[in-house]
């Protein structure tokens, strides 16, 4: 140790420490508080002219220490403004939550030079000393029920750093008072941060509410949810936030919304396609959360992670928590919230994080409920039109029957009948949007595909199709006309109705010649003829290729054609769910000229 070492001995007493603490406790701004800590500590040094210091705070999202301020005198021209994880003595002190006092930096392999005159250095972590963190209980039997436990740990907030021109510039006596000040600062900063985060969350909620009030039934649900996720991630220090939702049939859980500073728009779309799990059969953690309805903070060795996604998106780098989204009225898990940050300086998911995530879940639930209300309103609107039409026609007939000829009376009766037919489907649609069920009988039975599905669905609406100028044809080979399947006729007819409804709504109004609808029935060639395929050819305005993955999403409407046709965005989404329920599928085979949908039904019920 050099002779100058003694000159840096502290010359303070408790009242000096108390004064700094008092100043800090009166401060409500984190950066200002850190300045007080730095200046207060620096003034405690007797040999300030040979001592230079700075203070930084941890950015949990970037996993870096951001330098907030430096000491006022003799400050070198410090070019760096942040310190990365794992670099240098400072980073080590914060990562290990201990004071690092290096009497001779030239002998320390971890030293990173920022100032050429530095001979010795001391770094003191700013942290909350006792905080509760949540983690899954270590358990080798991964398939058993998971439990979480809370442990006591230290939470990193930032770091206070001094460098000296002298070897051995900082004596051990400095450790205790500086540590005391840093822990005190850590506690106060943590409280300020917590209060700011709650305020931020409240502001986000207010913004969503304001947007709801402004847009009423026009709300773009996906945009609201994406905004919510992006804002909460950015402002509440999470680097990833994923929202997954249980589908209406409660069969699968699908990723619907994702944000991370590391994800590109393209990667989010790939992620969404891959992150779909069967609630009943999947071993993925998302399915577990839905089944168990419990919060989990799994470690990186947890075998329930989707390995493909885990590797592709580098999820091993994150500490993550999974929170079930539980609908309070039904007590059912309707989705999951997954949130995390880079595993580095911070290694724990704290109870306060979990509390914050629960509040985000409340916001997500409110947004989901709002979306449901909007969809129901749209479905109700679809019912209002035919109800008004039937009512008007009834009134017209009642008042004018004596002045009408038989032809007109029959026409009005037929109009009312057609509107009632339309109402049957609209009511089923509303029922499905509300309850995921269609209760109209008969529910299931032996159905001839050709006569009871294809021919009937055309004949039911033949008049309207003719009136609108459509030519509707079918092509069914003789040998397939006798095929019967056991299915729910109400559901399959609803699917057909939705396809017809789209074809009529989205007809190409420029060319009248193109108003054709063709239906073909084929035996599948890829599964030994076990399935029947119904091809629905619609020569309408077509589907934009960029929306091919969105058209089956609940409430989705192509922004490019919203101004051309009104609609609810329910039809194809419900058609997909119904086909899945029937053990079949619906696929978009061609976008345009014609648009082709293929319905696949198993010949034999498994």
């Amino acid at each position: 140790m050099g002779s100058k070492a003694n000159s840096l001995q502290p010359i303070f007493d408790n009242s000096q420490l108390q004064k700094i603490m008092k100043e800090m406790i009166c401060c409500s701004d984190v950066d200002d508080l850190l300045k007080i800590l730095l200046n207060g500590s620096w003034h405690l040094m007797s040999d300030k002219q040979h001592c230079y210091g700075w203070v930084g705070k941890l950015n949990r999202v970037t996993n870096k220490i951001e330098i907030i301020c430096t000491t006022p005198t003799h400050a070198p021209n410090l070019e760096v403004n942040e310190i990365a994880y794992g670099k240098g003595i400072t980073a080590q002190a914060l990562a290990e939550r201990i004071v690092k006092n290096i009497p001779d930096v030239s002998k320390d392999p971890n030293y990173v030079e920022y100032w050429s005159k530095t001979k010795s250095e001391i770094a003191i972590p700013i942290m909350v000393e006792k905080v509760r963190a949540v983690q899954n209980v270590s358990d080798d039997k991964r398939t058993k029920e998971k439990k979480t436990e809370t442990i006591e740990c230290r939470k990193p907030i930032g770091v206070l750093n001094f460098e000296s021109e002298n070897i051995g510039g900082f004596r051990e006596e400095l450790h205790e008072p500086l540590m005391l000040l840093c822990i005190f600062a850590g506690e106060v900063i943590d409280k300020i941060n917590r209060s700011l985060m709650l305020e931020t969350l409240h502001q986000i909620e207010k913004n969503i509410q304001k947007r709801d009030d402004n847009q009423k039934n026009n709300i773009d649900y996906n945009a609201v949810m994406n905004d919510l996720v992006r804002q909460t991630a950015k402002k509440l220090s999470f680097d990833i936030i994923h929202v997954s939702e249980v589908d209406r049939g409660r069969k699968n859980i699908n990723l619907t919304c994702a944000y991370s500073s590391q994800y590109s728009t393209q990667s989010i779309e790939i992620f969404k396609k891959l992150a779909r799990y069967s609630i009943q059969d999947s071993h993925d953690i998302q399915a577990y959360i839905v089944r168990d309805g419990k919060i989990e903070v799994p470690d990186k060795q947890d075998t329930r992670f989707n390995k493909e996604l885990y590797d592709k998106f580098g999820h091993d780098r994150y500490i993550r928590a999974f929170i079930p989204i539980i609908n309070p009225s039904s007590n059912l898990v309707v989705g999951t919230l997954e949130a995390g940050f880079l595993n580095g300086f911070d290694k724990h998911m704290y109870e306060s994080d979990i509390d914050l995530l629960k509040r985000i879940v409340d916001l997500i639930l409110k947004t989901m409920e709002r979306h449901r209300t909007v969809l129901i309103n749209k479905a109700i609107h679809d019912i209002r039109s035919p109800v008004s039409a039937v009512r008007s026609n009834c009134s017209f007939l009642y008042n004018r029957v004596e002045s009408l000829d038989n032809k007109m009376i029959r026409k009005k009766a037929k109009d009312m009948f057609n509107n009632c037919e339309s109402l049957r489907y609209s009511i089923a649609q509303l029922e499905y949007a509300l309850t995921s069920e269609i209760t109209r009988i008969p529910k299931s039975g032996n159905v001839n595909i050709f006569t009871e599905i294809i021919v009937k669905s055309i004949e039911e609406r033949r008049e309207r199709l003719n009136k609108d100028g459509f030519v509707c044809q079918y092509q069914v080979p003789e040998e397939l006309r006798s095929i019967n399947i056991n299915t729910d006729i109400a559901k399959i007819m609803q699917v057909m109705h939705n396809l017809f409804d789209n074809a009529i709504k989205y007809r190409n109004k420029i060319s009248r010649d193109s108003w054709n609808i063709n239906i073909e029935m084929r035996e599948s060639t890829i599964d030994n003829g076990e399935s029947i395929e119904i091809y629905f050819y619609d020569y309408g305005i077509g589907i934009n290729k960029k929306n091919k993955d969105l058209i089956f999403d609940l409430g989705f409407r192509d922004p490019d054609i919203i101004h051309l046709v009104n609609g609810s965005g329910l039809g194809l989404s419900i058609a997909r769910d119904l086909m899945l329920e029937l053990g079949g599928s619906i696929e978009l085979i061609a976008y345009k000229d014609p648009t082709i949908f293929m319905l696949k039904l198993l010949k034999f019920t498994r």
Partner: protein
Amino acid sequence: MNIIFIDDEIECVEVYKEDLEIAANEKNSELLNIWTFNKLDEAYKYLEVNGNNIDIVILDIMMPGGANFYKKDLDPMGLKSGFYFYQEVRKQYPNLDIRLFTNVTDSEMERLIQDDPNSKIYYKDVLLPFELTKEILG
């Protein structure tokens, strides 16, 4: 009397048109002409030329906005296109009798219409054909 009916589901207004025509015929009091349009852009073009000869416009609200009346920022789902049409027509013809005919309830829209002495709102699920006839022909 010259009336324009604008509704994308034109079959819904047919019965109102028929009732008006029967009543006018029974009264034999005046010549009644009714034109129907299912697109806002086309109706607007027609009004630009013939607006001064039209007595009443009966206008649906929730309609595809077409090229001119779809306000993406204000109304991304296009639920109030008819109302934007009303505002444009009103600028050009301050005294034209415009009756909004809708299933949509919107307090802001109702307030604006209340302040317009030459407009009224009719609700499709309330107003019956004979009631509209009475409103128009007396």
